[in-house]
């Protein structure tokens, strides 16, 4: 019986190791393919082409702005969805997650119709269409739900008795948020920010629909890669793709290093 159990365990471990290895190898191959497909000349040309440098900078700038706005707006939304009961909460929950399942192109189209000529919000006279504000708005609408969903789950996972303990210690709601909810949801918040930032950085559909692809103005890195690939500048496209990949990897490692390694509820 023992030998049979041991054999089962070996089969189980081997299957999981092989499947994981296939997955990780695929990712490494993507990075290596990009790395080996570019030359030093391609990299030099990109860094000397102001249009492409602007695109890289614009992507970094807008994705971080989106991350910041998402934190400020998304945290209260996640808190309300996790802690409050009100009529229509299930509907709000579904609406928040709608942009995750909806093609970004549709989100971009909706923004275009809202702020375009004769749109519902055209009266506000905010320059959204073909501007960098439009890029931020498009990325925000597409990426923020990832943060809200992750943080809402984190807040929901905080045991109810900790909220009761905080209230019995006469802590105000704001103090409880600052001293208990945010620290206990730290991993969820960081994971949500990573997802938001990554989604914003790689955003293509909604951004192109709202802001177009005006070189030196609204052309983000992903749009620039697409344009380069379409116009036959394969080397430029590959080099920028590699830069984007390495840049993402660097920030992922940086964010993850700030996450707690242990289960906070292990008391």
């Amino acid at each position, binding site marked *: 019986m023992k030998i049979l159990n041991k054999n089962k365990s070996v089969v189980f471990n081997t299957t999981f190791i092989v499947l994981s290895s296939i997955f990780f190898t695929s990712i490494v191959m993507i990075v290596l393919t990009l790395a080996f497909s570019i030359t030093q000349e391609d990299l030099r040309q990109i860094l000397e082409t102001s249009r492409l440098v602007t695109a890289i900078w614009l992507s970094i700038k807008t994705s971080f702005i989106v991350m910041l706005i998402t934190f400020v707006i998304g945290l209260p939304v996640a808190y309300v969805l996790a802690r409050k009961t009100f009529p229509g909460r299930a509907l709000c929950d579904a609406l928040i997650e709608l942009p995750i399942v909806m093609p970004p192109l549709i989100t971009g189209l909706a923004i275009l119709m809202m702020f375009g000529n004769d749109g519902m919000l055209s009266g506000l006279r905010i320059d959204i269409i073909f501007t960098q504000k439009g890029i931020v708005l498009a990325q925000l609408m597409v990426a923020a739900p990832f943060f809200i969903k992750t943080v809402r789950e984190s807040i929901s996972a905080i*045991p109810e008795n900790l909220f009761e*303990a905080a209230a*019995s210690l006469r*802590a*105000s709601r704001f103090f409880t948020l600052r*001293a*208990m909810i945010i620290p206990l949801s730290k991993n969820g918040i960081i994971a949500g920010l990573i997802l938001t930032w990554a989604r914003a950085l790689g955003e293509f559909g909604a951004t192109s629909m709202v802001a177009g692809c005006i070189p030196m103005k609204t052309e983000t890195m992903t749009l620039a890669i697409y344009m380069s690939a379409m116009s036959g500048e394969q080397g430029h496209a590959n080099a920028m793709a590699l830069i984007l990949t390495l840049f993402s990897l660097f920030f992922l490692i940086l964010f993850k290093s700030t996450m707690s390694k242990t289960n906070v509820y292990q*008391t």
Partner: protein
Amino acid sequence: MSIRLEHIFKKFGDCPVFNDLNLPVNAGEYHVILGPSGEGKTVLLKTIAGFIRPDRGRIYIHGTDVTMASVQERSVGLVFQDFALFPHLTVHDNIAFGLRAQGCSKKTINLKIDKYAAITGLARYLKKYPATLSGGQKQRVALARALALEPEVLLLDEPLGSLDTSLQEEIRLELKQIHHELNMTIIHVTHNKTEAFFLADNISIIHKGKIVQTETPEQLFYKPKSSFVAEFMGITNIFDGRIVREIKHNVHVHVAANEYHESLLLYLPKFPVIEDNESISFCIHPEKVILTNRKYDRNCLPGHVFHIISNGAMFDVIIDVMGHQIKATVPKTVFNRIDKDDVFVYFPPESFHPLCGKTHRMPENKRKCMNYAADSRIILS
């Protein structure tokens, strides 16, 4: 600070939790709410703390109506059954949590932490995280955290429930000491009778959404007012019977159970409201049951020794009296002198205690009973 709960009703959906619950707690007393699991003890504590609002009824703390006040507005500290420590904070920061929330200065916070860490024996553990503490240490942190805010009322929700026996004894002593030192009103809920008897100035028994009896531990044990209280207190010798006649506090009761039919004489001078032909429940404590080889004229029945349990200098003896099991606690020296094959069980008439709440139905008798209760400071359910 005194606490008074008046006519509390609460339902969760269709399920009633409190049904006209009344609870009086005197200022500075250690009050234990005792009852089996599932009787709403924790809900009651959370209602007093302000987490749950009653459907009807009023809650008074030191005479002030706090029924609609929020948790933060009541000067109440709560120690949770599972401690509810903040896992991301050290012991020091857990204790400081409430003080920081109140905006206390660093100096005040440190002074209070030093004081309450000393009282609860936590001075050496201030830099540790909850995950690294033992059950007893966690309980002390939860206590120190609640005490640091110096609440007027401290609520303890089964504080010893998750500790092992030796730790329970240790923390029990500490709770008694803390109550003595700080002289605050403490309400402690538990299902553990030993805990209740050791700690309480007064005990309230909760059953079916009501407080059925509030009494000192001694009164509760020797004078339970209902079969439920008697059974819950572990009193085994409970009889149900019908009153045949009463002459000058000598009450003749016909008792029938299994093959057992007997007329017993009860001497009940303190209960003036006995009526003929009424049903009555009464009990006799095991230490008052007499085992003998002599046949008395009254209240004496032949029995068969069924089981003997050694209990220190005493024996707990279970005797089968015509199908009815009677428990007697007798000194070992006395029991060893008895011929076990020819045992009689004798119930002294003055040793019976009627379980009130079954016979006082007529308004006139109820009034008499209330007067009696007022005289003897017994609160009737």
